[in-house]
């Protein structure tokens, strides 16, 4: 338990983020003090770990005004296919849509791999009904058949139900009627219609999204119920809030209805915290780099707003098409394994030692050399801290492994071999970050790199150097960024309606009405939430394309009042800046209209994230030790500072190592770090 104080006065707000390994908690108390804790995640029942984290706080649960929880309950349920038994009713002739997918394979090369549908075929039934693509009824819904199908699924012990009809985005009448009938027969509220989460065309993606939603609803509900009653028993009087994948929070009573939105909420929280932190530091365009044990997450923030996508996949052939913070996972983490291939070249990844058995240096039985082991050998990680956990492994054992697996085959010294692992790993990660940026049409050199996660600050400066990125920002608490995201998040609701018609056949009134309806729905939802907001902000955008194209471009709109001429102009501008191609000859088409309604919460002061009373007046007093650290093919005697002790306005040039409870920061030689009022370090990266 760590605690520090600031000078802010309001209610007590607590963020608890449940990650794969750790449950992190952050409390902003009414005096402006901030305290935090890191406890192990309890896999089978995450609520237990949350309660455990809360018990670490000095603030009694009964004194907390707001608790916001980020959970991986639904993520794990989907990835491990530990789902509620779910039935599906579709248009006759189309029950196999969610099993057939879009004709793909897991990798471009290799004829291996399998796909398990979210709902098995035996639980997918068909009824007579049909709309055409304009929403005209071709075959009326056969209600007798429908009732029969519902009863059959109940007999097969289904807990949740999906109703997924073709073209329901164009006319939801049949889905709505079917849901009405189902509600009379189904014993619970776990009924999801295809159009309700996202009124967007594409039957596979919409169907999978609805299926995931239904299949995780009971699981999320159970978790929330358990946690709520535990909290209530301990005196928490208000409603729990839960993080969504769009980076916003939602009341516990509303979250299960759209449970699919929580599936990718963990990474989203971190990105929200990054946007919030960087904006306070005056930096508005950032690439976030969250490096963990098995993989790293990368996201883009433009003008302080995280990019959102509604076309993300959780894994192969598992699209969840609801608006989510656009976080891309790249395959390298601290546990990525280094090896020599048949061509005698050094490779890092894609194999990973993960958390178990993990890197050799964790002493959990890992025998393969990983990125973390290389960091240790090179003095970048503190051996005393690492080995203090359990003395099963010694530095010599790690060095021996590097020698045997890497150094000897390459004819290098152990130190040079470990250095080579980092060179290859950083090169690879930089390449992946670059592709993420370019695929969204942006040059990474126009951004600052925001590093967090346990391992992000170890590699960020080296990666920025590879990419030509000028600045790296390391927040005060890189290891608990997701929990911070829970605390700073706003209330948020997103809406998408498919139009999909040539621009010149649409009138401005229709555009205006659609956006206004979305806004009204959003406002009503924000007002129904259990959390106070200062103001409501609305963002509008259109997904557009040239007629004949299939890829979409998102175009921000200034208001709900836009003429089609303005739309055409905005689209052409956006197209030119993204693709560097001008196509004045070709007509545009309006595919989707989108509205985001955000209830902004009162701003929070982050300056107490590092306790001011711990700060020393000079940098020298923050020095813990000096140890040799390997940079640029040689050892350098490198100062090691305690992060919490450095003066807030410290300015110093690398090489340097900063250690703190939740991470280690490496400042590469010739790069200069400067502290700021919120405890961030902003590093100017030296480029050759």
């Amino acid at each position, binding site marked *: 338990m760590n605690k520090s104080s600031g000078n802010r006065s309001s209610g007590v707000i607590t963020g608890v983020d449940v990650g794969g390994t750790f449950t992190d908690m952050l409390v902003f108390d009414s005096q402006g003090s901030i305290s935090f804790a890191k406890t192990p995640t309890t896999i089978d029942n995450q609520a237990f770990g949350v309660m455990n984290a809360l018990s670490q706080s000095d603030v009694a649960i009964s004194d907390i005004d707001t608790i916001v929880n980020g959970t991986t309950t639904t993520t794990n349920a989907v990835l491990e296919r530990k789902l509620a038994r779910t039935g599906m009713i579709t248009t006759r002739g189309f029950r196999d849509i969610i099993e057939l997918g879009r004709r793909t394979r897991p990798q471009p090369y290799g004829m291996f791999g399998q796909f398990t549908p979210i709902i098995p075929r035996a639980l997918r039934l068909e009824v007579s009904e049909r709309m055409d693509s304009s929403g005209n009824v071709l075959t009326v819904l056969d209600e007798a058949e429908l009732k029969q199908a519902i009863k059959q699924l109940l007999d097969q012990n289904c807990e949740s139900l999906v109703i997924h009809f073709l073209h329901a985005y164009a006319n939801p009448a049949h889905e709505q009627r079917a849901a009405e009938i189902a509600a009379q027969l189904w014993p619970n509220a776990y009924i999801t219609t295809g159009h309700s989460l996202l009124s967007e065309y594409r039957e596979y993606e919409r169907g999978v999204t609805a299926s995931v939603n239904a299949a995780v609803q009971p699981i999320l509900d159970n978790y929330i119920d358990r946690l709520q009653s535990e909290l209530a028993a301990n005196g928490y009087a208000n409603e729990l809030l839960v993080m969504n994948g769009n980076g916003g929070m939602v009341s516990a009573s509303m979250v299960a209805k759209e449970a699919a939105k929580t599936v990718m909420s963990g990474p989203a929280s971190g990105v929200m915290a990054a946007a919030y932190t960087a904006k306070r530091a005056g930096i508005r365009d950032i690439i976030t780099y969250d490096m963990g044990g098995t993989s790293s997450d990368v996201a883009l923030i433009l003008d302080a707003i995280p990019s959102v996508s509604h076309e993300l996949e959780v894994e192969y052939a598992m699209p969840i098409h609801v608006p989510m913070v656009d976080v891309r996972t790249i395959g390298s983490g601290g546990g990525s394994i280094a090896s020599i291939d048949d061509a*005698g070249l050094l490779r890092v990844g894609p194999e990973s030692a993960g958390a178990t058995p993990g890197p050799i240096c964790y002493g959990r039985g890992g025998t393969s050399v990983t990125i973390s082991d290389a960091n240790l050998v090179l003095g970048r990680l503190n051996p005393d801290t690492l080995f203090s956990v359990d003395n099963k492994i010694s530095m010599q054992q790690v060095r021996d492994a590097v020698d045997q697996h890497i150094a000897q085959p390459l004819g290098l010294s152990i130190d040079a071999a470990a250095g080579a692992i980092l060179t290859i790993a950083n090169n690879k990660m930089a390449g992946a970050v670059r592709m993420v940026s370019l695929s969204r049409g942006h040059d990474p050199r126009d951004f600052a790199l925001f590093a967090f996660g346990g391992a992000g600050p170890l590699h960020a400066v080296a990666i920025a150097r590879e990419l030509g990125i000028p600045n790296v920002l390391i927040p005060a608490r890189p290891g608990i960024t997701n929990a911070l995201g829970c605390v700073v998040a706003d209330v948020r609701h997103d809406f998408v309606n498919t139009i999909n018609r040539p621009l010149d056949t649409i009138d401005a009134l229709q555009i205006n009405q659609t956006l206004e309806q979305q806004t009204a729905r959003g406002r009503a939802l924000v007002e129904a939430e259990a959390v106070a907001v200062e103001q409501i902000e609305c963002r509008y955008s259109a997904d557009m394309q040239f007629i004949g194209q299939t890829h979409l471009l998102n175009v921000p709109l200034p208001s709900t009042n836009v003429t089609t001429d303005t739309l055409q102009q905005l689209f052409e501008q956006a197209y030119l800046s993204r693709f560097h191609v001008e196509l004045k000859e070709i007509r545009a088409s309006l595919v989707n209209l989108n509205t985001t309604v955000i209830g902004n919460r009162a701003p929070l002061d982050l300056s107490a994230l590092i306790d001011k009373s711990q700060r020393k007046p000079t940098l020298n007093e923050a020095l813990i030790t000096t140890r040799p650290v390997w940079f640029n093919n040689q050892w350098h005697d490198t100062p090691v500072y305690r992060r919490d002790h450095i003066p807030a306005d410290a300015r110093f040039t690398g090489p340097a190592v900063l250690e703190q409870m939740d991470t280690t920061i490496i400042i590469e030689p010739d790069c200069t770090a400067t502290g700021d009022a919120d405890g961030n370090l902003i590093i100017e990266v030296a480029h050759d």
Partner: protein
Amino acid sequence: MTKDITQDPITLAVIQSSLQQVCDEMDLSFSRAAFSPIIAEANDRSDGIYSADNGELIAQGALGLPVFVGTMQFSTRVLIEMINDEKIAAPEPGDIYIVNDPYLGGTHLMDVRFAMPYYHNDEIFCWLSNTGHWPDIGGAVPGGFSANATAVEQEGLRLPPVKLFKRGELDNEIYSIICSNIRVADQRIGDVKAQSAALLVGRERLDQLVSKYSAPVLKEAIAELRRRAALQMRQRLSSIDDGQYTGTAIVDSDGVVDEPLTIQVNINKKDNNLHIDFDGSSPPCAGPMNSVLATTQSSVYLAMRHIFPDVPINAGAFEPLHIKDPKGTFLYAEYPRPVSGCAAEVSQRIAEAVFAALVPALPERVSAAPAGTSGNFALGGTDPQRGQSFVMYQLSGGGYGGTHDHDGLTNGCSTIGISKSPPVEVMEQYFPVLYREYALREGSGGAGEFRGGFGIRYSIELRRGEATASFVMDHGRVGPQGVLGGKDGMPNSVTVWRNGEQYIPLHLSKDQGIAITAGDRVEVGTPGGGGFGNPKNRSIEKIQSDLDNGYYTVQQLEESYGVKLN
């Protein structure tokens, strides 16, 4: 740098991934900016870097269409030879050649290749080249896939290598000749700009690499990486016992003469090399199922890459694969043999024959036969309601073969492609059709210890007006082969219901010009994958689960597996 780059595995690894990155960025740039869905969404394109001396592959984008894995090195080599022989104009900085001639190292006419010399100090250091599938290139039928063309002239406009860009400027005269010979020409400018811009992205990124490492070091590194890739491929080949391996695949017909064509591949493994010939394959055919040499060779490379996906793609990886020119067969097409079916259909079947040959040697790396056809159904007509003509394509997947430890994938993409099929909801929006069914094709996966994946079954009805249907598919006569005791997958089937009467194409999987009117329906069943291993060894739980999910009838399962179910 003083250090010998060939002895520096770290810098080599970094250069290797940097070259790969250049190609990946070219791929990305091409797809992002391309106009045609076939490039932008289906990724029917590829970008690479080729040797200045002989066009050999140096690096290629990871997400390029698999069938292009080796083709551009042939077209670049031909280009270099033609320049050396002064048959075409000598290159200057900023020039981009365009070529789609299949006989000059290509595939079919729709695959249009661009090639740009990359200069360093006034000398050509390497070539940058890319291929994009244009949605139309003229010829008898929209889209180019004529099922019964008998000469290449019927298939579309054929371009020898000519400079489309001269010193960076588009040559409008040549461009107007192209536009006058293709359909929907007004949209092509979007693809031409994207295709050339991708090469410029490659040039810019190569400039950075050259300035970082210097041209001589880079050149040496490229040679060393080639050597090491060859080493790596030989290492992999060493897991195959020396000896002779043979595989065959049967193509239904050439679309003109209703007779099956045989692909026979004979592989001799010796000294960690594969000596591959196609002796015993059918002679050149009258219809468009001939394959040009570049496509035949590329199909072998693509099959090997599916078997050993982790060997990096460059000319070194192909070095241990010695392919004898299959002269005298339909896999060595010469002018004016029609070739439109080679890239989409014959190439897959060649890969299938390679799989069939090698599965006994590498049972843990090779699956039973996959569906093996792109399942191309085209419907062209005029929509009376919109007063517009349309051409619609339904390309379909099928089942993959079972493997040594799991059942085959259902509705997988063709081995030579990586593109997604369009949603039914999109097709119905764009075209006057109604899907009556789009379903898993029950019973189609071949039985085995690990069964084949399932094909699909669809039924499409024309809602308005009149249209003509054509089909370029395959595996109609025999299904994808089962291996090591596994049974074959179900063959492809095509049925057209006209005025309530059933019409089955004479060639089963290939036909064109079938007139249909509103209310008529086209029904297609795509092949299931072959089974792997003796069905007797399949676990009863898996058999029961196949029954519960309605994948097979009780009778089918009892017959295939010799069990009694309740």
